[in-house]
């Protein structure tokens, strides 16, 4: 069910400043693209444009063949796009249990109750959370919450998954473990994914390709190793240093 994501000439202005500047990007179905950039580079804004939370001042967004956003107008609202998102702060609804968090989207799609519960049980088993269905988010560890967040995104079987730096506050060990899990899950489902991060190692570990965003413009698109041939670019040098 995965689909391609395509942005053409997307420009977003905020208080007269270009947060995104004529960004064009195509992610084929089933590819995971990492979007790498420093703070304020516009990467979260780009993600929110794809999700439908932000209308760009210029440019269009397509999901598959469907035009979902055009200049200044959200054609298809976020709830109609059939994409999923894992937020930086996870945004697990604190008043709902783990099961409730996963069931919310499925209920909206009118998935029959037995099928719904089967799908929830399956995905929770896959992320190693069987038996924790009745817990509230506040009763889980940091790593468990991350797993709930990815499970909540994938249980809907979305056309694409958007990640907004979901691992930024975790220790290295947990990060590695969860990156491996993400990679497996995305691979199994052949899901299209856009993964936003400021950590080149995460980008390298997860993405088939990496886009580097700097001051609202895409300055590199391809494999991260390709940057080694461009040591003249300051951002390339910084990324390569971070990768060691």
């Amino acid at each position, binding site marked *: 069910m995965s689909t391609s994501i395509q942005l053409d000439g997307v420009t977003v202005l905020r208080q007269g400043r270009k947060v995104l500047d004529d960004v064009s990007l195509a992610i084929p179905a089933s590819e995971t693209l990492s979007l790498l950039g420093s703070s304020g580079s516009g990467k979260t804004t780009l993600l929110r444009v794809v999700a439908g939370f932000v209308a760009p001042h210029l440019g269009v967004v397509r999901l598959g063949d469907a035009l979902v956003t055009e200049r200044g107008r959200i054609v298809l609202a976020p709830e109609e796009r059939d994409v999923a*998102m894992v937020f930086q702060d996870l*945004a697990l609804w604190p*008043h709902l249990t783990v099961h409730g968090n996963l069931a919310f989207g499925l209920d909206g799609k009118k998935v029959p109750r037995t099928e719904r519960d089967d799908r929830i049980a399956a995905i929770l088993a896959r992320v190693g959370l069987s038996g924790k269905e009745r817990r509230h988010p506040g009763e889980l560890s940091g790593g468990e919450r991350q797993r709930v967040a990815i499970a909540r995104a994938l249980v809907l079987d979305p056309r694409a998954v958007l990640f907004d730096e979901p691992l930024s506050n975790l220790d290295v060990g947990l990060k590695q473990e969860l990156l491996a899990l993400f990679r497996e899950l995305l691979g199994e489902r052949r899901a299209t994914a856009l993964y936003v991060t400021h950590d080149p190692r995460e980008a390298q570990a997860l993405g088939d390709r990496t886009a580097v965003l700097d001051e609202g413009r895409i300055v590199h698109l391809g494999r991260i190793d390709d940057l080694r041939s461009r040591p003249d670019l300051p951002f390339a040098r910084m990324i390569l240093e971070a990768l060691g």
Partner: protein
Amino acid sequence: MAAGLGWALALRRREEPFLLLAAGVVLAAVALVPLMFLGGELGKGDALRHAAHALSAPRTWALFVSSLGFATAVTVLCLAIGLPLGLLLGRADVPLRRVALWLHAFPVFVPPFLLALGWFHVFGRGGLAASTLGARLLFSWPGAVAVLALALTPVVTSLVAVGLQAIDPSLEEAALLVAGPRRTAAGILLPLVRPATALAALVVFSLAFSELGVPMFLRVPVYPGMVFSRLGGVDYAPGEAFALALPLFAVAVGLLLFERRAAGRRSFAVLGLRSREVPDLRLGHWRPVAIVFTAAAALLPVAPLAALVIDAARGHGFSELAQWIGASAWNSLFDALMAATLVLALSVVIGHAAARGRRGGVGLDALAVLAFVTPASVLGVGLIATWNRPSLQGVYGTSAIVALAFAARYGAVGLRTAAVSFSQGSEHYEEAAAIGGARFLRRLGRILVPIHARGLLAAWLLAVVFCLRDLETAVLLYPAGQEPLTVRIFTLEANGPGSVVAALSCVQVAMTAAVLAVGSALLFRRKA
């Protein structure tokens, strides 16, 4: 058929703007249309000429400036007492802080004219602490300022105390590492609660500026009295009253701009109910002084209420209660609950839109504030002009008109509280729901309302108590035979037995206390 389906589909796809539009239409119908009707009265006969004459008279502006001075004095006094008190009750190592805050805050929920009446029972000749000087001071400009300031200071204290508890503890701890408690309080904490202070100043100024009962009772001429005289005198001149209310609207706009400027982008991010584990600020050798200050602040506003209880008990007012109370207490509760529920419904939609900066949200918030500062008599006469029609008797001839009037007048209270609550929660909760396929109504019902249940309950509760304490709005519109308790106290006050009036006032106070107690029990209930 197809067109109908298309319309339904469009409605479903744009639930949020349609819902905001619906809420806006309701708010406009109760707050804006009545004022426009009154504006229309200006076109009748000589109204415009009279209005121009009234607005060009130096006396009008002298009174206007004097009223601004009155409201400013009340606001300054409230801030002078409320800021340090909020700090002490919110953060310092003062004993029995919560009790003191409740005692101190309670009078704000009592009709101000009852407090003035209570103070008269204390300081007036024949009062509990009668003296010539006391009586003379009470019936003077400073006396009216003091009575109203004591009644309204809790607005500042409470907002500052609660605002302090919402501050990130690490900010305070970082300051305590390099400075003492006093510098931390003055240099870090108080500036951080600036949005709370600005909102409190706005509320106090609005209430003081539109207050009619206390200044009239204590014989201080105020501008709203002038507006009122065009409606309450013999020459009924609604158009002229509207014209005279125009400078009040200008004040409302000024207040809003002031608040936005003072609070900046954090306009709504004021309150929080987060618990925190930070040790109290140590007062050191200032502690005894602080304890005396807080004790006085807690007990002083209770004095007029105590005087009413003593008066009621002395004159056997309580034994005659049954004969005089009628259904008025029930009417009060019914009207207040209906109105607060309507306010809550409006607040969820408009408060959310205002907090999220949606188009229209900020404008509707401004309209609600405008209605809040509009003199009740002006709004009331406008509501009669709008709603008293043969086809609308199901509304005008029933309690529904009181609920609508309350919603217009106190919508801002609920709306602001709800907006504060929404603005403090992460936007990601609702975005996560949206991206999970939920439309606005479902997000509202399943995610936003449950997550903000406490904030919304607080909004509802505040709306209930503001409606309960209302006199000036209800007295104009209540359906015949269904007067609320405040109106009954007020109408009986003229020549009624003093002890019965005092006893009825006690019922009013007890009823408010009971509603607050139940509401707070729900509000501060530990989560299961």
